[in-house]
């Protein structure tokens, strides 16, 4: 049966989600593009109309004004429009209010990032247990399908680990998720998604699992060079990231789980300057005119809108998961990765590759809920679900998966 979808969040990722829903009209009938700013929703819908995707019968997409902090408003919208699945690609500050609305109404829930409290930097470990996992019992009791962290990272990389666990390894010892963007947006400085979320996360402590224990390092204090397929050698830095926590719990026996992101020197110089002058602070300051503003918000207002980068973005992203363990009592190492091209994703859905890789997976998840494969009636992180149908669906939608078993030499990890 075709499903009605409510997308919340009309940023760069929301736009990809909406486009991909429109391309998947065999599974969806009514799609509501919801945001506090209805203008942003309308803009996305007009981009979709220009694409002239061939709709299967009775598909429609409409804008919806919605306040994602307001659980009751979301509950009302779900009832009014008979929503089956809510795809939350809004800021991570609103996960709780949207999840509560789904639990209240029985709608399925999909998000792409762990909940964050606005006032809390360096949220204490264990991250998913702070909010989402507290709702696991009630989801199970009420038969709510809630899929957490289903973007690319977290999301697809979690599925890589599930795939490796099921089909490639007897035991997994270590997981290194490595995310690099070899693209060029042609701007002096820009974040690739919401500057507020992005600049916060990269100056937070880098939490990871090492030798079976949770450890925290200062941001950008550990880095290494890694030679990636296609995009070549990149300098990557240890960061805290949602999936490090869930994989540390859900991949049995794993000792090391780390997340690394690529940054070039220019990006880090800019970041340091912003930090030095206090532009990354989230505490309000009072201006000479007596207006209270958050410095990070002023910086965000000055920086390019990530959605505006797409038209001129060139180059590729590479998000890889390096997995080490044993198979048939032999050591084994493999890298599972995706290469995504900014120009190709723009011609497909008017978006750059970073928004694309984050926005396609939640639609694949919605399709799998519609098909039944992932209609699990409980709360799950992606690595707890069947990986193969997910990877297959992603492949059809423009995200292919490469799997390479590494010889000993190739897999050498140069730690700095």
């Amino acid at each position, binding site marked *: 049966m075709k499903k009605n979808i409510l997308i919340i969040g009309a940023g760069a990722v929301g736009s990809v989600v909406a486009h991909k829903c429109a391309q998947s009209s065999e599974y969806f009938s009514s799609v509501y593009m919801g945001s506090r700013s209805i203008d942003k929703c309308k803009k996305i819908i007009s981009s979709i109309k220009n694409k002239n995707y061939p709709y299967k019968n009775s598909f429609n997409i409409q804008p919806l004004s919605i306040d994602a902090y307001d659980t009751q408003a979301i509950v009302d919208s779900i009832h009014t429009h008979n929503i089956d699945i809510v795809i939350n690609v809004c800021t991570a500050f609103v996960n709780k209010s949207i999840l509560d609305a789904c639990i209240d109404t029985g709608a399925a829930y999909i998000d792409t990032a762990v909940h964050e409290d606005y006032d809390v930097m360096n949220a204490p470990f264990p991250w998913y247990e702070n909010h989402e996992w507290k709702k696991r019992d009630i989801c199970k009791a009420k038969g709510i399908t809630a899929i957490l962290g289903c973007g690319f990272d977290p999301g697809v990389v979690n599925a890589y680990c599930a795939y490796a666990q099921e089909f490639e390894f007897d035991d997994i010892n270590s997981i290194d998720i490595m995310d690099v963007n070899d693209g060029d947006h042609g701007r*002096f*400085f820009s974040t690739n998604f919401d500057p507020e979320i992005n600049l916060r996360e990269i100056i937070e402590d880098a939490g990871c699992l090492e030798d079976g224990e949770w450890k925290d390092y200062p941001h950008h204090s550990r880095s290494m060079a890694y030679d990636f397929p296609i995009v070549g050698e990149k300098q990557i830095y240890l960061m805290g990231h949602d999936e490090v926590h869930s994989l540390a719990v859900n991949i049995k026996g794993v000792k090391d789980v780390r997340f690394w992101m690529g940054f070039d020197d220019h990006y880090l*110089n*800019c970041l*340091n*300057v*912003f930090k*030095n*002058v*206090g*532009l990354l602070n989230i505490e309000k*300051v009072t*201006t*000479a005119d007596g*207006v209270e*503003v958050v*410095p990070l*918000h*002023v*910086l*965000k*207002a*000055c*920086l390019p809108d990530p959605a505006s980068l797409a038209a001129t973005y060139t180059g590729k992203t590479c998000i890889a998961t390096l997995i080490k363990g044993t198979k048939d009592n032999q050591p084994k190492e493999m890298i599972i990765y995706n290469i995504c091209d900014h120009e190709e994703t723009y011609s497909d859905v008017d978006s750059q590759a970073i928004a694309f890789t984050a926005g396609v997976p939640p639609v694949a998840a919605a399709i799998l809920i519609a098909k039944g494969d992932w209609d699990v009636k409980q709360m799950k992180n992606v690595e707890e679900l069947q990986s193969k149908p997910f990877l297959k669906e992603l492949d059809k939608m423009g995200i292919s998966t490469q799997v390479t078993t590494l010889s000993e030499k190739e897999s050498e990890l140069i730690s700095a």
Partner: protein
Amino acid sequence: MKKIIIIGAGGVGHVVAHKCAQLAEVFPEILLASRTESKCVDIAKHVKQQYGRTIKTAQVDADDVSDLVRLFDNYKPFMVINVALPYQDLTIMDACLEMGVHYLDTANYEPLDTAKFEYKWQWAYQERFKQAGLMALLGSGFDPGATNMFTAFAAKHYFDEIHELDIIDVNGGDHGYPFATNFNPEINIREVTAECRHWENDKFITTPAMSEMQSFTCPDEVGTYNIYRMYHEELESLTKHYPSLKKAQFWMSFGDSYLKHLEILGNVGMTSIEPVKFNGQDIVPIQFLKQLLPDPASLGPSTHGKTCIGCWVRGIKDGKKTTVYIYNVKDHQDCFREVKSQGISYTTGVPTMIGAKMMMTGVWQQPGVWNIEQMDPDPFMADLNEYGLPFQVIENPDFKLV
């Protein structure tokens, strides 16, 4: 008794008020005026504590000639020291003409809407000041000011003819912050983004901003710094008054970190004067940035190190080529101990007081509009030694500069 009005209660106004207050016999009555009178009151309180002298304060809008005339009419000063904004030079000069008040400033007039330093606006007042029997002394800070005097002093005592001049302004101070500006960040930013002009073969040559850089080792172990060629207003008056100059350049030191911060902040739009909107609030990025940065006036206690500003002059004496370097080195902490101010404000404010002293005592008293190098440098130079900015002379220095 000759009375004086100081207009401007920023960092330089603070120093000028203190230095004038130190010389009761020259400046028996002082009034400090500014748009924000509370800033004047704070300075006056500190002067009272330090020297036991009362200086008056007043509110004035220096953009408004009639308001200035009202103030001058009430107080009846002999002269006014203008250490307000360069946009306000002409309104203050107009008020001086109207009320018969002598005038002194430290920076040449700039129209608010075009960032162009030019003396032509003020030079146009020459006849009117002459006819009124009033003196206007232009550019009596450090640079312009002391640097013009160094040049005039060199020309008078060491050369028959001067041919080449390099003014080198090094601030070797460290305020301990990753990034802070010594004065208004907006003006700092304009400084490093403005095209460079230097004098060569009878004309000004324009080159891209910050495109010429070299390393300079200061004397007296101040250190080695990267200095960048840029335009500075004294080049215009010095090349006019010393037509024998074939080449004249101005250099200023900037640290790598300072330039990196400015470049990045400028490129992301944080130094823009165009408002941005966030959640319906209009915010002007440069003003917001100013808010986040340390208040320049607060840098005094934490600033360590020295300034070294001087003129390297080449020319002919008795038919032979000769060179001389005249300079001052000042320790930021010495300035702070003396008047609770960092060295940048101090080195500007002391020559301001000395210029005013020359006029008050009649040592320099000549109707018309004058750049400071048109005055006899000797008494001014003697006072630099006396009042906190002693100069040094190195003959035939071993500089290898472009």
